């Protein structure tokens, strides 16, 4: 009986266990995993990060004229596992992870744009491979005719 | 890890497991099924209680749509595994009913799809 009276008085003077959510921000741990940052100058375009990503959040599309790659990243598909950071080779180190989470967005066409980008990534790589093969065959043929 | 895999004829499976299984020595783990080269392979696996990772696996290969004998009176847990394999692989165990995971008029035998 005395135990319960002592507990009641102790609880009367202690702070609540919850925080006042909209008026106070929720606490963030500095070890939390967040979105991936990309440095274009150090990248060597080996495409290993695109191979390893489990949900497919990193895509590379290829330009059909000068065969250069462009990097696309979807922070809403990313699971923050940092496999891409570990897969990037030692001489490049172009990817790193910060502790910010992806911000909320109200873009209604976000899904359609990303699905179109996936198709574009596959088709642009196939077409560039074909273009390179025909270019190499065309540059071989004139040499054979002069010999 | 000690693994002992033993091939067995599908007709003798009930007699063999009734003779082998003693619930204070062996622990029944799972019934497993594979589909390769148009043949089903079913595995029954047991481990020894108290020993470090000692496995005993019986396996049998049957043509697809063969009527397989059920073990649910010797091992009550086998009823759940047989129902699951009937739904997903099409392994026709005696006394099993479709509809545990997939609806009765839904997709047929999804685990037979190869890449």
């Amino acid at each position, binding site marked *: 009986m005395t135990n319960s009276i002592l507990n009641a008085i102790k609880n009367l003077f202690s702070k609540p266990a919850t925080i006042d959510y909209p008026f106070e921000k929720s606490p963030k741990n500095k070890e939390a995993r967040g979105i991936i940052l990309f440095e274009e100058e150090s990248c060597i375009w080996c495409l290993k990060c695109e191979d390893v*990503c489990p949900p497919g959040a990193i895509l590379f599309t290829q330009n059909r004229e000068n065969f250069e790659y462009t990097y696309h990243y979807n922070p809403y598909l990313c699971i923050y*596992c*940092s496999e891409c950071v570990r897969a990037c080779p030692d001489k490049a180190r172009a990817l790193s992870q910060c502790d910010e989470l992806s911000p909320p967005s109200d873009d209604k066409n976000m899904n359609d744009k990303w699905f179109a980008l996936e198709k574009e990534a596959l088709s642009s790589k196939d077409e560039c491979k074909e273009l390179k093969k025909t270019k190499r065959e065309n540059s071989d043929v004139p040499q054979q005719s002069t010999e | 890890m000690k693994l002992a895999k033993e091939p067995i004829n599908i007709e003798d499976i009930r007699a063999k497991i009734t003779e082998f299984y003693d619930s204070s020595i062996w622990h029944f783990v799972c019934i497993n099924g*594979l589909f390769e080269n148009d043949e089903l392979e079913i595995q029954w*696996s047991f*481990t020894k209680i108290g020993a*470090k990772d000692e496995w005993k696996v019986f396996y049998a290969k049957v043509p697809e749509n063969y009527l397989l004998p059920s073990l649910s009176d010797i091992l009550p847990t086998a009823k759940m595994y047989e129902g699951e394999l009937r739904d997903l692989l099409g392994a026709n165990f005696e006394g099993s009913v479709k509809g545990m*995971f997939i609806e009765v008029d839904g997709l047929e035998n999804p685990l037979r799809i190869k890449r």
Partner: protein
Amino acid sequence: MSKTINIPLGSQHIALLEPVRFSFECENEKIIGVEADVGYVHRGVELACTTKFKFKQVGYVVARVCGLCAIIHSTCYTLAVEELMELEVPKKASYLRLIANELDRVHSHLLCLSHTAENAGFEALFMRTMKDRELVMETQEAMTGNRVQFDYVSIGGVNKDISVEIEGSMRSKLALLKQKVAEIEELFLNNWSLSLKYKGVGVITKESAYRCSVLGPLARASGVDFDVRNESDYLPYAELGFKSIVMQDGDIHARNIVRLKEIFESIRLIEAALDGMPDGDIASKVRGTPEGESYMRVEAPRGECFYYLKASKGQYLDRVRIKTPTFGSVPGMIEALKGQNYADVAAIVASFDPCLSCTAR
């Protein structure tokens, strides 16, 4: 022959956390027959693991089968693949994997105990246990980076290391947690309406536990000393001195006490692992592709989790078979429900601790 009626405990119910449907055949409030229907959340994980994802990515897919035992699935798959590829894992990585597994066990048992308290009508204890569980969630966030789905285990080792200040904060939080759980244990042992009124209700006898191959805390509360941690060498439990906890009665009260004492044993294992942590790398390099067959099991908070893999030298696996503990315990649960009153069913189902996302993958 008297008349019987069928009463359902439907797929949506206040006492259930996840959808499962039972249909009871009752005669004047005593249950005579039970039919169970699991499989409401089937997502086709086994097919996805062999067709859409490569073998390095399957570890992240499989962790999302269940929310409460996520790291157990990930660890079991990784151990099976490392055996197929014959990789050596550094000793420090094994110790870190053991610490993550035991932290997961502590938070899962605290969730089950708080749900039991809510079903007994004791809502203040439910909120208080959840507040104490926040200490464990903060520890997990400091160690792995996330609170529930820690993508911590990958092929070859673990992803993140422990620094000295993280270890210090872990030790102080665990010491505080031991005091709080001791207060909760005193309530469970002495309060009538919380646990003592359920002595003799929902009993699984020792013979039926052997016959139905019941797993995990359900078996250990009925007198069957069966624990995968005693029978497997892949994680260093034997070096740290592990003892399993067994009680003889088999009713709801015995299961609650087994889970409470397992929390203390897990905290002791974590502190022993932090004391004896070896030095070294946290991961080794991965080369090649897997080939062959492998069988592996690990102890989840609810029982024994089993994986079978078959591969033949490619980037994609041939067959992945997952067996989860709740799926194997369903016949045992059906045996325990026969002969009980209908009014006790909510408390009995909560004491089995069913995880339906694991059951119907």
